[in-house]
């Protein structure tokens, strides 16, 4: 049994990291996620983790690389502009196959943008984001509770698949306060034979690198990564359904938008419209198969993706539905959160 409390999303995430056995945090303050580093700084005397406020997100992500390579359970958090700076490091970490967790509490962009919540980094997060052929598992929490649960899950996936894992939150989930159950702390006992800890006489030296200058060797590393991504796609797809069983209109939404969309589904049901909500929890791997199955049902009239961006996840929904049913989009931009009412009206328009 965990501890029931009332917490802000960013702080709950930080507390969950501590309870997951965090050994190193490297970050740079940026709104709307600075509470993470502030909370960790405040709690540090009680714990045994490394905490560095780096000179930039670029430095932070490369400290993360070094620390992960040294065998640490390590994390960084940032928001959109900072996440862009981190892409270099994420590409290196993915290719070198080091486990770590990166959190992006997304704000409106592009550019310096706004500090209000957004889902504008969906493409960047779910397509690798940096250079080269790679993906990272991406989790989309929609509550303070999931800010906690996804930290545990992210560390677990990172260790299991030797990959950076991204938690794609947003400014609203990061800033809101909710009831949360904090799980018991884990006694983290890592088994990382690949880590660079010093070459002892009983073993060969360990080299952690993403440089394979011969193209044949580089292709081999790429194929190894692709094999890993295939396994992740087979085993780690997570999603949630709400009133899908008889639904004719499928609302697809993740993160904050999934909560708004739940209300929209209720509006629909009250008005006699059979609506249901499909919520991807893993944004990569995306629940393609599950959505395709729903698209195959005769009763289903159309899909509509609700997002806080110009329409990014809707492309994945289209890829899943494969033209079997129409796929629409409704969203708001620049840090505006759509209301359930306006969203419901937008869906009703598609009915006519």
């Amino acid at each position, binding site marked *: 049994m965990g501890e029931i409390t009332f917490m802000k999303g960013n702080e709950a995430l930080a507390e969950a990291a501590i309870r997951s056995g965090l050994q190193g945090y490297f970050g740079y303050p940026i709104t709307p996620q600075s509470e993470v580093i502030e909370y960790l700084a405040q709690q540090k005397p009680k714990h045994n983790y*490394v905490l560095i406020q780096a*000179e930039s997100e670029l430095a932070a992500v*490369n400290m993360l690389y*070094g620390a992960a390579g040294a065998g640490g359970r*390590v994390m960084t958090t940032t928001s959109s502009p900072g996440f862009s700076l981190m892409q270099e490091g994420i590409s290196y970490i993915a290719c070198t196959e080091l486990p770590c967790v990166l959190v992006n509490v997304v704000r409106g962009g592009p550019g310096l943008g706004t500090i209000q919540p957004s889902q504008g980094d969906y493409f960047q997060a779910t397509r690798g984001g940096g250079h080269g052929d790679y993906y990272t598992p991406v989790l989309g929490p929609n509550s303070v509770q999931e800010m906690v649960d996804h930290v545990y899950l992210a560390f677990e996936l990172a260790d299991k698949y030797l990959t950076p894992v991204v938690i794609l939150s947003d400014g609203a989930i990061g800033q809101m306060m909710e009831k949360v159950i904090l799980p018991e702390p884990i006694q983290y006992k890592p088994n990382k034979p690949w880590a660079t800890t010093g070459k002892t006489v009983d073993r060969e030296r360990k080299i952690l690198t993403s440089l394979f200058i011969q193209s044949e060797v580089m292709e081999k590393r790429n194929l190894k990564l692709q094999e890993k991504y295939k396994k992740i796609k087979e085993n780690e797809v997570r999603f949630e359904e709400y009133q899908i069983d008889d639904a004719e209109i499928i609302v697809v939404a993740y993160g904050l938008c999934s909560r708004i969309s739940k209300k929209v589904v209720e509006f629909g049901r009250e008005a006699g419209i059979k609506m249901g909500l499909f919520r991807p929890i893993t944004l990569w791997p995306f629940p393609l198969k599950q959505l395709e199955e729903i698209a195959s049902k005769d009763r289903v009239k159309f899909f509509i993706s609700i997002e806080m961006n110009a329409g990014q996840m809707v492309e994945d929904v289209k890829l899943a539905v494969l033209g079997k049913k129409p796929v629409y989009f409704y969203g708001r931009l620049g840090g505006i959160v759509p209301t359930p009412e306006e969203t419901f009206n937008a869906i009703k328009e598609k009915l006519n």
Partner: protein
Amino acid sequence: MKDGYKLIYKRPKTLLSTRMHYCPGCFHSTIHKFLMEVIEELEIQDKTIGVCPVGCSVFAYDYLDIDMQEAAHGRAAAVATGIKRILPDRIVFSYQGDGDLAAIGTAETLHACNRGENFTFIFINNGIYGMTGGQMAPTTLEGQKTTTCPYGRETADSGMPMKMAEIISQFEKVAYVERVSCDTPANARKAKRAIKKAIEFQMQGLGTTFIEVASNCPSGWKCTPEESLKWLEEQVFPYFPLGVFKEPAKRRQ
């Protein structure tokens, strides 16, 4: 070995027998050798973790029989910080060139030094981008010709060559800064001593240690190895003087 003689100098065992890809006369190889000699003398092979950069020494881990991580261009100081903070009882060094340490990675370098990160920088300053074919570096001398300043470095355009040892020695938490070279046996011996001192200071937890090597690049400078030594003496040392720029106030006995 012949009868009546004893072995007094040989290649360190931790320097792997793989042939190094460096050009004839390149000090990268000399410094690799000294680094491994020091690691053997201090018996720290099992404790040492190195970070190699992007640049000519990008393959350093092919030659050094120790655990190593490859860093992104310029990020070696950040990577070394991450390693050392997670494993504070290990010996960590970053091995970087001038483009890496003094151009693209200047922020990471300066901030690691400002925090006094307890690892050792080995900074190979040869005044040129060797690996990419001889372009201008932040340390290219005024008037020196490279492929991107074919008429000689114009300081009006590109500023002055950056004196990293002098800059780094300004940081309070930096314990030891020395600029060395390997152009003569005497200077080479000093270079090795400096590397050893730096690692020893790190073992004592004194803070950042920084060894700048006024290095050569016969291929990039388009000269023979011998001519590169002359260039060092006549052109490089007057601008980048050798010597100790900072050392711990209280030497432990």
